């Protein structure tokens, strides 16, 4: 720990005490900050110029005009504040991505109060802003991209919620930690040799289970079946959604095995397993996974793929 805190670190700690992380944060006077924008200052400068003009020409109406501008600014403080006040921010869903690319997190905005919230800008530091408006008593959801620098759980930084509505003269903002994370899968790294045990060792017997190689008839679709194995022709004949049955290839199912990758650091191992996992999924080969602490039996399909990726992403993390 550094002896002298930078102001930034000090500010972060202060913010953490003031607005502690929570999955659901309602913005109120404790959590909203407000300051004039550059235009607000320009506006006040015009008011000041008119005040001087009014004094100088002993023109009461010009003075009144300058008082009006000052007064409108004052009203704008309240309205800008109100626009942000009373909205609840909730952590929502997530869309995972590979490390090095971007994922997305959902933020739900709920209005429990009698007025709407117009023109709220949401942003993680350093990413693209999104604008959203919430009507009174309604809710809205926004997906925000998150950079995923490393594999595993990537915790989002504090979310900046800002509004300049109605007049743009003031900026009211808050910075909330929704205790929100996005899962980053390992970055796939190509490798020549498949780190998998072939089917001949483990499953020599040519089984009549639902393999993937040779077409062997159809059965009704069950959720989780790969879209690639849907029997589209029967759908066209209006016989409902059916899945093609294949008999397994001679080499049988593959086990992607951690232990087959030697002399590599764990992240590299995970990356290669990930690449092969995607490759096998693409070529419709059933695959399983053996990690030092987990074992997932071979299967195929989008749900299986998701599960495998999640296991790889969370390897070594609680």
């Amino acid at each position, binding site marked *: 720990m550094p002896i002298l805190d930078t102001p930034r670190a000090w500010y972060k700690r202060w913010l953490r005490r003031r607005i502690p992380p929570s*999955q*659901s944060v309602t913005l109120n006077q404790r959590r909203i900050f407000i300051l004039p924008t550059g*235009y607000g200052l*320009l*506006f006040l400068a*015009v008011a000041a*110029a*008119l005040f*001087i*003009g009014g*004094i*100088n*020409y*002993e*023109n*009461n*109406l*010009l*003075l*009144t*005009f*300058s*008082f*009006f*501008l*000052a*007064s*409108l600014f*004052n*009203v*704008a403080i*309240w*309205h800008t*504040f*109100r626009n942000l*006040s*009373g909205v609840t921010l*909730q952590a929502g869903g997530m869309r995972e991505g590979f490390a090095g690319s971007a994922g997305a997190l959902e933020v739900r905005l709920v209005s*429990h*109060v*009698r*007025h709407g919230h*117009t*023109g709220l800008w949401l942003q993680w530091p350093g990413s693209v802003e999104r*604008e959203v*408006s919430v009507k*009174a*008593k309604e809710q809205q959801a926004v997906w925000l991209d998150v950079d995923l620098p490393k594999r595993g759980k990537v915790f989002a930084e504090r979310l900046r919620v800002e509004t*300049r*509505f*109605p*007049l*743009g003269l003031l900026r009211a903002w808050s910075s909330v930690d929704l205790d929100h994370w996005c899962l980053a899968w390992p970055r796939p790294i190509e490798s020549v040799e498949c780190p998998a045990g072939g089917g001949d060792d483990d499953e020599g017997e040519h089984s009549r289970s639902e393999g993937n190689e040779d077409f062997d008839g159809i059965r009704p679709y069950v959720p989780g079946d790969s879209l690639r194995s849907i029997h589209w022709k029967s759908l066209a004949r209006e016989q409902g959604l059916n899945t093609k049955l294949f008999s397994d290839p001679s080499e049988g199912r593959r086990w992607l095995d951690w232990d087959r990758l030697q002399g590599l650091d764990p992240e590299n191992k995970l990356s290669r397993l990930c690449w092969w996992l995607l490759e096998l999924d693409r070529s419709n080969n059933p695959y399983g996974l053996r990690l030092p602490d987990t074992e997932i039996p071979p299967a195929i399909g989008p749900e299986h793929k998701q599960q495998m990726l999640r296991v790889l992403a969370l390897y070594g993390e609680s």
Partner: protein
Amino acid sequence: MARVYQVPQHAFIWLMTGAVMASLPHFLTGPAWLPLFVITTQVWRILVQRGRLRMPAKITRAVVLVGAVAGTLYTYGTLLGPEAGIVLLVCTFNLKLLEMFKLRDAYVAIVLCYFVIATALLSRQDLLISLYVFAVLGVITAALIGINQPEANIRARQQLKYSLVLVLQAMPLMIFLFFVVPRVPPLWDLPIQKKGAKTGMSDSMAPGEVSSLSRSAALAFRVDFKGEPPPPEERYWRGLTYSWFDGTRWSQAVPNDLPQAEYMAYPGERNRDWYREVQRQQVGKKYNYQIILEPTRRRWLFALVTPFTEQRGIAFARDSRLINADPVRDVLAYRVESFTEMPRGENIPDWEKAFNLRLPEEGNGRTRSLAQRWRTEAGSDEAFIRKALSWFREEEFYYSLEPPLLTGQQIDDFLFRTRTGFCEHYASSFAFMLRSVGIPARIVAGYQGGELNPLGTHLLVRQYDAHAWVEAWLPGKGWQEFDPTAMVAPERVRLGLAAALEAQNDESFATFNDLVGISGLPLLKDFMSALDYAEFQWLKLVVDYDTDAQKGVLQKLLGDVSPMRIALLIGAGLGVVAAAMGLLLFWQSRSVPLNWWEKEYWALYKGLQKKGIPVSDDLGPLALARLATAHSATSQPAAKAWLRLYNDAAYRTAYQDKTTSGVALSSEDRRNRLKLRKFRKEMLRLI
């Protein structure tokens, strides 16, 4: 090129309306090319918005700007000073509309727009322009709201509505600040030149000049009396005196070698002997009133005889008049105390006597000899004056707005040939007669009469009330007023010009009626007087709210006025406004009240929490019920019953009536609520 910022359509409507409305008042005061410039840029801007044209290139904008600067320089000969500054401001603002590439530019244009409409108040401050400016404020603020609302599917009307809310909420603080923020004296002097010829009285008078002034119904000034106004025949509003006569023309003059201190005294210079003598004689009937004078671009002010004022910048002149330090460019209000029966100038210096006796050596011989004959017959100055006035009354003299032209020896020609004249003819010939027999005399020019507004206590004095009369100096009595016109047409002083012309059966009465025009119609007349009343109150209360008036208000509020107390008052006012706004905010930010079944949901939520079961906001009623069953299978029947009742209440009631809050519960609802509570308690007991 980067993407060009597009003003949202709903905001654009208000932006352009605001731009047109803010530029419009400047068309009246600015140069002739200004409307052309403004309309061109605005039409261009609209075509850009519609995608027909592109924003002008940088070079084009620069050329147009140089053109505007050159035009201003050509019109005013300078770029400095308020008039040129305003024209440049209007041009730059309209040009800024054509330089809108970023959101920033839209902001700058709107802030400039506030500035543009504010400067319209430099040349006019009446009620009409004030209401207009107020309307423009609403529109500009709507545009400002619009550019902060980037969504496309918004109706422009909503922004105007919101803008009016903001503008109205800004009013209380504005009014408060208006009354209490201390007025500071001007920092520098840079007068605003205003277009328009000088209207009203001029500093000299020849036959036919006052009558031409009387062809205007324009307002000269308004008078607000504290108490009863004087009767019509005593309403002689003195403006200036003419002491120099050259045979045809009377002019305002003082002897060349006379120092200013001898005939003018500003407040603070009141220790002069002649002024002290005037002040000593403050006796007789007193009138207290405030005059609100329309701009005359002249320095003299109008008042009843022997006027006193303590207002800064107004001097008392030796001939019992008030003179402003500067030409009156804006509406000017001044408070006067007049003593109408006060003796004036009982002991005047010899130079003053001699100055008011001077006549050309030659000319108008018949008048001179007639006057001298009467003087000898009469035996005294007073008797002579009576004789001359009765002559005007009894001989065949006529009062007319369109008198025949005079030729040759003008006074002889009038008195012995045409005998038809307006007030200046009678005043001029009467003063000539007085001087020719050695009575010091001068002409007084001003207004006579005034129309009482039926709604208020104030008088309206119009240009057609212009009048000229005579003052003669009599030993032991000082200056006395005489109005020969009143001898010829007594209706003039009692009932006004229209009545006098009508009584004289003069054909110029028709001319006068044309002048008054349709505003003479009864209904319209009522409306006009109501409008005038509002305008007058506006001028009195707002436009001319000055340091003195402020002192009065502050004294009422604070008792003793000190900077500390003013600061406290402003602080307190701001506090009250802040509290009111906070209260409003609190009121509007109340949570939406919960329905009875929603309250039941939260009761279960808290109940589970108390049992140590982790719950979170995003769990619905179903999830809560499942959580309960998961922790204790025995609670399942209660949970099921609870859920069924809950769903029934939430969905059936919501379907029947969406706004259930505040609606009285039906007996069925009440029963269901009790059941729901029972099942919840049972559920929680079993966990």
